[in-house]
């Protein structure tokens, strides 16, 4: 039997269908991989018993000819931001100590209904706030890729555990969430595919909220085809999320025709930022050439307000976070630290329960929403957000998709960029604009940094046009021929 953890999700689905192996065998191989890679700290909670139970149920369905679809029997990781019925959901925070939701998020329920097998809950930055997975109460996640210096590197964030679980062959796919780049940036840092769908494509119900107008769930996988398969299982209208789009879910995998001839691919000149690293610039240029060789036409486009996207994001996201995180008060779930009065109990609980980055963002959010400052910061940011969204609308009048780098650098060593919050925020410079505009984007491993670390290119699409994004991503993936494996798997980590 082939090494079951080396299969792609699509290959595993074929193998299950052909009867080459059972979901129980596939799942056991992945449980063993998870247990053997605990040094990467990719999981907050492992759920081998649940996994074996669901794998057995899948095999039973298959034996009766009642297969739910290509995800049936496929072992996945679930970011620990999705509420899972009866299973600890920590959001990477101390303040949710012991929280076992008595309900299942819509996206994880959709995956369950599709037959997917949950291996465990993946580590993440606390409340999804971070770009390096160094803010989790449950410890840092380690990138399975190393450069010649041998230093432990960050996996990116906030979906760092999900990205590492996929890259290190601990699962065939993982759910992530992306508020400012939290799927695409760790995808790029770990050499895997990360897809942020259009805002409204996947239900937010049951996902621990960070910034509700920006949060969106999506798949993280080793191939574009796998992302297409997994997204189809995750997506769909949900009456429990008022911003969930009431539209049908296409067969995303069918969009991968391999034919992008005649498509106009925008190359935004404002993304060529000052001091752009030479390897990122070369990667981007190479991506343009590859798409051109495949018959697409690169077109110069302008997104003039790009440089203001980060500052806009770091007003809007903390503002929404300060409101969303008001619910953690020590009364209904999670941590409680007693006090003599109600206010003191709140203050003690929240003082002890939140880590420094979360605290920083709640305070910024509280400040920009407070009386006297609301217009100067929050309202101003909402107006600039309108301009950023308008930039994309105009660009998409002339192009079918946009090609850009996913990150300004490759994965950096743990400890770097951590003294200055603003330096850390700059990681999201190429990913944040899409969230502000609600657009879909995919990060596809497309090359390497000077140090031999993976780098991703990002394809940005029109609202609800994930199909074009996936089709171009698939062509880019084939052209780039990225087939290197993390050093961790070669045993020289």
């Amino acid at each position: 039997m082939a090494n079951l953890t080396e299969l792609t999700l699509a290959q595993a689905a074929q193998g299950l269908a052909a009867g080459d192996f059972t979901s129980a065998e596939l799942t056991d191989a992945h449980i063993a991989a998870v247990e053997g890679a605990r040094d990467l700290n990719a999981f907050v909670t492992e759920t081998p018993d649940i996994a074996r139970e669901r794998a057995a149920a899948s095999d039973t369905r298959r034996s009766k000819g009642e297969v739910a679809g290509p995800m049936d029997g496929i072992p996945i990781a679930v970011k620990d931001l999705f509420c899972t019925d009866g299973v600890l959901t920590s959001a990477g925070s101390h303040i949710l100590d012991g929280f076992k939701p008595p309900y299942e998020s819509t996206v994880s329920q959709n995956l369950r209904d599709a037959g997917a097998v949950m291996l465990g809950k993946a580590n993440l930055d606390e409340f999804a706030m971070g770009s390096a997975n160094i803010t989790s109460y449950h410890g840092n996640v380690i990138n399975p890729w190393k450069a010649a210096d041998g230093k432990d590197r960050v996996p990116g964030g906030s979906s760092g555990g999900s990205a590492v679980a996929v890259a290190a062959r601990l699962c065939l796919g993982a759910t992530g969430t992306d508020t400012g780049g939290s799927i695409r940036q760790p995808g790029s840092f770990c050499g895997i595919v990360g897809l942020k769908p259009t805002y409204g494509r996947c239900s937010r119900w049951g996902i621990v909220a960070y910034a509700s107008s920006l949060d969106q769930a999506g798949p993280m996988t080793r191939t574009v085809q796998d992302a297409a398969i997994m997204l189809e299982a995750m997506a769909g209208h949900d009456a429990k999320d008022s911003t969930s789009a009431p539209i049908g879910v296409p067969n995303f995998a069918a969009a991968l025709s391999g034919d992008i001839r005649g498509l106009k691919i925008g190359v935004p000149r404002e993304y060529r930022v000052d001091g752009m690293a030479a390897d990122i610039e070369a990667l981007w240029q190479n991506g343009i050439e590859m798409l051109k060789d495949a018959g697409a036409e690169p077109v110069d486009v302008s997104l003039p307000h790009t440089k203001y996207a980060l500052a806009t994001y770091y007003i809007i996201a903390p503002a929404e976070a300060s409101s969303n995180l008001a619910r953690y008060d020590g009364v209904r779930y999670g941590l409680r630290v007693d006090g003599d009065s109600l206010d003191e109990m709140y203050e003690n609980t929240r003082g002890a329960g939140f880590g420094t980055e979360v605290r920083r963002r709640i305070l910024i959010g509280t400040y920009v929403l407070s009386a006297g400052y609301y217009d100067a910061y929050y309202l101003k940011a909402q107006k600039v957000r309108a301009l950023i969204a308008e930039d994309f609308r105009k660009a998409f009048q002339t192009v079918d998709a946009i090609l850009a780098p996913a990150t300004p650098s490759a994965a950096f060593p743990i400890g770097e960029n951590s003294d200055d919050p603003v330096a850390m925020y700059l990681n999201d410079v190429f990913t944040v604009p899409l969230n502000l505009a609600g657009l879909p984007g995919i990060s596809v491993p497309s090359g390497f940094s000077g140090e031999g670390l993976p780098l991703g290119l990002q394809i940005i699409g029109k609202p609800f046009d994930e199909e074009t994004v996936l089709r171009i991503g698939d062509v880019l993936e084939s052209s780039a021929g990225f087939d290197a494996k993390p050093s961790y798997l070669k045993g020289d980590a």
Partner: protein
Amino acid sequence: MSLDKDTVRNIAFLARIKIPDEELDHLAQELSGIIGWVEQLNEVDTESVEPITSVADMSLYRRKDVVTDGGYQARVLANAPDPEAGCYTVPKVVE
């Protein structure tokens, strides 16, 4: 705009987060750095721009105002730190 120690103490109270006094100076400096950085938005002319709260191009749908869920007190209370007699508990509020 730079934030002083008192401002930070005040927003920490508004956010109900206890912050030890010795951390206030450092925090004031950090938050001032972030606020100073986001103030670059002042360069942008937004005179005739309408603010947006969401990019979702849709209006909220309506449903009948009826109870659609509920009736499971035990599940609701299952995660409470200190439930009593079928209720959440908090420190005494009224003397």
